[in-house]
C-alpha cells in the first residue's frame, strides 16, 4: 500500500532563514508517526507544508496521493495547530458542531469528538473559561470531528495531566488501528516511545526516520533520548569531517 505522506527534498525559507533544508521522508498509512525535535527545529513548518498552508521554496509534498494543499484533500485531512485555534466566545459544543458542519458531519459526531477528548462535562462551557489543557483538547476535538483519514497534530498533549495524556495516546492508537494515519509532533522524548514510526528533525534537517526499536538498535542504547543524542553527535561528526575534507581539497 502507498504511503500517506511522501516528502521529497522539501525546502522552506521563512523570514530569510532556511527552516527546512532538504527533507525527504515517508509516513506510512494506518500508523502513528511521531515528529520529534527541539523547539524551533522546524516541526510546525513541516506540518504546515503537509497541510498545504506553507509556502515552500523547493521539493514536493504528496499527501494521500495528491499534492499537498489540493482542495479535495481538505475533506480528508484534519489539522490541529500548536496554539489552540477554537473560538473562545463559543462553547465547546458550539465549536465542535461548527467544525463538524464544515466536514458535513452532525451533532452525533460532534458530541462523540468531545467525549473522545474527555470534555463531555465541559461541553456547555465557553472555551474562554476553560483551562489551557482543556482548551487545547477542545481544539483537538475540532480536528478529529471530521473523521479525517490523515490527522496532523501539532503538540496535542502539551499541558495535559499524565492520565489524560495516556488516554489520548490510547485514542490515537485506536484510530490508527481503525486505519487512520496520524502524524503527531512532540518535543518530549518519552512520547517518542509511544509512536510506531519516528521522524527526528533538528535545525531543519532529518536526523532519523525509523521505528523506535530500530533507532535504539542503531544507536546501541535502550534510552531513546540517549539514542537521539548519539545520532545527533554522529551526524555532526560526519559533517565536520566532510567540511574538513572539503577545506583540505580547496587548499
Amino acid at each position: 500500500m502507498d504511503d500517506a505522506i511522501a516528502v521529497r527534498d522539501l525546502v522552506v525559507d521563512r523570514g530569510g532563514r532556511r527552516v527546512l533544508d532538504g527533507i525527504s521522508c515517508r509516513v506510512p498509512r494506518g500508523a502513528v508517526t511521531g515528529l520529534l525535535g527541539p523547539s524551533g527545529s522546524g516541526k510546525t513548518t513541516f506540518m504546515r507544508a503537509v497541510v498545504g498552508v506553507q509556502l515552500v521554496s523547493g521539493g514536493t509534498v504528496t499527501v494521500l496521493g495528491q499534492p499537498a494543499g489540493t482542495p479535495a484533500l481538505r475533506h480528508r485531512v484534519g489539522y490541529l495547530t500548536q496554539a489552540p485555534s477554537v473560538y473562545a466566545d463559543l462553547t465547546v459544543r458550539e465549536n465542535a458542531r461548527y467544525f463538524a458542519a464544515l466536514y458535513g458531519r452532525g451533532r452525533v459526531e460532534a458530541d462523540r469528538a468531545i467525549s473522545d477528548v474527555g470534555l463531555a462535562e465541559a461541553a456547555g462551557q465557553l472555551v474562554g473559561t476553560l483551562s489551557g489543557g482543556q482548551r487545547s483538547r477542545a481544539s483537538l476535538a475540532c480536528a478529529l470531528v471530521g473523521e479525517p483519514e490523515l490527522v496532523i497534530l501539532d503538540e496535542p498533549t502539551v499541558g495535559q495531566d499524565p492520565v489524560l495524556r495516556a488516554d489520548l495516546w490510547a485514542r490515537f492508537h485506536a484510530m490508527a488501528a481503525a486505519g487512520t494515519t496520524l502524524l503527531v509532533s512532540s518535543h518530549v522524548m518519552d512520547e517518542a516511545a509511544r509512536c510506531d514510526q519516528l521522524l527526528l528533525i533538528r535545525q531543519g534537517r532529518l536526523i532519523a526516520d525509523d521505528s523506535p526499536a530500530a533507532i535504539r538498535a542503531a544507536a546501541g542504547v535502550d534510552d531513546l533520548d540517549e539514542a537521539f543524542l548519539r545520532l545527533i553527535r554522529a551526524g555532526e561528526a560526519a559533517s565536520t569531517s566532510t567540511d574538513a575534507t572539503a577545506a583540505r581539497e580547496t587548499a
Partner: protein
Amino acid sequence: MNARILAATTGRILRQLRHDRRTIALLVVVPAVLLTLVYFMYADQPTPPDQPTTFDRIALVMLGIFPFVIMFLVTSIAMLRERTSGTLERLLTTPLGKLDLLFGYGIAFGLAAAVQAAVAAAVAYWIFDLETAGSIGLVIGIAVLDAVLGVALGLLCSAFARTEFQAVQFLPVVVIPQLLLCGLFVARDQMAGWLQALSDAFPLSYAIEALQEVGAHAEPTGRMWRDVAVVFGAVVLALVLAAATLRRRSG
C-alpha cells in the same frame, strides 16, 4: 461556495455575537441614543418654509451612516481575531471556501444591522417624528445595505492590518473621508471639482444619495435604484478583492 457551510458559518458568527450581550446592547441602543442627541441639537433651529427640518435631513443620513461605521469596525476586529487566534488558518485547511467565510460575515452582520436599523428607524420615526416622502421600509433596506458595505470594506481592510492598533486606524483612513464627502456637511454639487471626483469614487456617497432620494420622493426613483446598484456593486467588488487577499498559503 457551499450552502451548508455558508449557513453553518453564518450561524457560528451569530452565536458568537449572542454570547456577547454587551455588544448586542451597544449595537441596538447606541444609534438610538445618538439620534436623541441629534434631535435635541437641532430642536430649536429655525426651518425655512417648504423645506425638510434640519433634524429630518440629518437623521435620515445618520440612519445610513451608523450601520456603515459600526459594522466596518466590528468586522475589522472580528476578522483580525480570526487571524490572530489561528482559527482563520485552521478554517482554510477545512472544506470551507473563502467566499463561504466572507459571505458568512456579510450575512450575519447584515442581519444584526437589520435589527439595529429597525430600532433606530423606529425611534427616529415614532419618537422624533422623522418625516420622509418615501417609505420607512426603503430606509431600513438601504441602511442594511450600508451595513453590508461596511462589512465588506472591513473584511477587505482587515487583510492589511496585522495588529488591533492598525485595524482601528483604518477607520480614519477609510471611513471618515467618505463621511466628510458624502454630502452631509457640504452638498456634493457645491464642492470643488476634485472633491466631487473623490466623492463620486466613494461608495458611501451613493448610499447617502439613495437615502436622500427616499426622503424627497414618495415613490422609489430611478436614481435611487441606480445608487443602490452602485453600492451593491461596491459590496461585491470589495468581497471579491477580500477573497483575493485571503491566502491559504503563507510564508
